[in-house]
């Protein structure tokens, strides 16, 4: 009860689910980067994932749970925090916090929308049914072709750019924040972690948007 209702307990939940999510985006980026190697690499990677069978579903359920918990508590905490300051000063000058930290709920909700779109785009395959080309006879899709075709039109590229910008904002505050929440920072490590946090954000941003951009600029092509 303490964990799910108290102020610090829910913070810890946010931090732990945050770790799961940030670990996921890092691993996902690593997997995705096989696209730079070529069509065979990324298709092999996709096949490997598929071959895990039920484990994929376990993994997906864990991710879904972490994601849902992170969002639900995030919204709940934000609403509480807003209610704690029913009226604000006429003049407000912030000395330390940044845009990313102040807009966590916005970037979080945008990311939720993005993830839904992303799943519809590449996983459930409903937004652009024309990009799927079968690969082999086991019901697999040519992922490489899907990615290249998927970023041929402007809208998905723009949406991915926007989505990843918010990921940068979210992670640049969230990453160092989880160390503080889990009691792992002190006065010396905190400034370092704040820089590291921004770096992690930048790496994710650059890594993720490089794929659609390289497709747009024709460096990844069929």
């Amino acid at each position, binding site marked *: 009860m303490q964990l799910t209702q108290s102020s*610090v307990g829910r913070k810890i939940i946010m931090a732990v689910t945050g770790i799961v999510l940030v670990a996921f985006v890092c691993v996902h980026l690593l997997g995705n980067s096989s696209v730079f190697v070529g069509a065979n690499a990324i298709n092999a990677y996709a096949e490997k994932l598929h071959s895990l069978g039920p484990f994929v579903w376990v993994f997906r359920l864990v991710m879904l749970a972490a994601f849902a918990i992170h969002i639900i508590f995030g919204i709940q905490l934000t609403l509480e*925090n807003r209610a*704690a300051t029913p009226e604000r000063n*006429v*003049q407000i000058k912030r000395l*330390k916090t940044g845009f990313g930290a102040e807009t966590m709920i916005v970037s979080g909700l945008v990311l939720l929308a993005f993830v839904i779109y992303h799943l519809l785009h590449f996983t459930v395959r409903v937004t652009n049914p024309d990009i799927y080309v079968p690969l082999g006879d086991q019901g697999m899709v040519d992922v490489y072709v899907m990615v290249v075709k998927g970023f041929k039109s402007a809208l998905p590229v723009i949406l991915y750019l926007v989505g990843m910008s918010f990921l940068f904002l979210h992670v640049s505050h969230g990453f*160092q924040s989880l160390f503080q929440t889990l*009691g792992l920072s002190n*006065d010396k490590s905190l400034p370092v972690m704040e820089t590291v946090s921004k770096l992690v954000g930048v790496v994710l941003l650059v890594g993720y948007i490089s794929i659609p951009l390289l497709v747009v600029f024709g460096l990844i092509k069929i």
Partner: protein
Amino acid sequence: MKVKLHVWRQNGPNDKGTMETYEVPNVSSDQSFLEMLDDVNLALAKDGRDVIAFDHDCREGICGMCSQVINGVPHGGQERTTVCQLHMREFEDGAEIFVEPWKARAFPVIKDLVVDRGALEKIMQAGGYTSCHTGGVADGNALPIGKDIADYSMDAAECIGCGACVASCPNSSAMLYTGAKVAQLAVLPQGKVEAHKRVMAMTEAAKEQGFGNCTNHYECQASCPKGVNVKFIAKLNREYMKALCK
């Protein structure tokens, strides 16, 4: 020099409140900010008008009574400085200055710039102590305490309980105030005994009193007139997890 003040005037917790403007001529740059307000009040009183209510007492930066948001920052944003230690020479001639009270659900306005900080008291009463009796304690030197630990504890104990951490926090969280006390006592052998109970009780009290949750903006440290470090919030979190595991 002269300045133009915009001051929050509010006649009680249920009054709407509004900013009022006052032109202040003949300000001496050697005056403290509160002495400048004294002059404004003197002129208002001479005029038979209601004076601006503001909390103040020691005027040397230690009692924690003064509580004004000046130009959007609690205590005015000079590093490690309370309002009462802020001097007019920090402002330019002709400056416009906004003066407002702490604003948080947990701090209802009593009048103008005076707020009720009783919620902070409730946090302390929940566990900000060691349960030792008067008399019958061990000799002060019975338990050696490392200098680094004593210094760490003292760093946390510098908190003057003014509430600037709450006022500066986008979430109106009192976690720095709570963390400072939790950390001060948790590292000392005398305070370790009740550390688990204390961190649970104090964080729960903070929630009950209507303070928000900490989301690591670190505004509290930046505006703290004693520079109390957010590492004490990390320490509180650590103590909390230890208590959870118990």
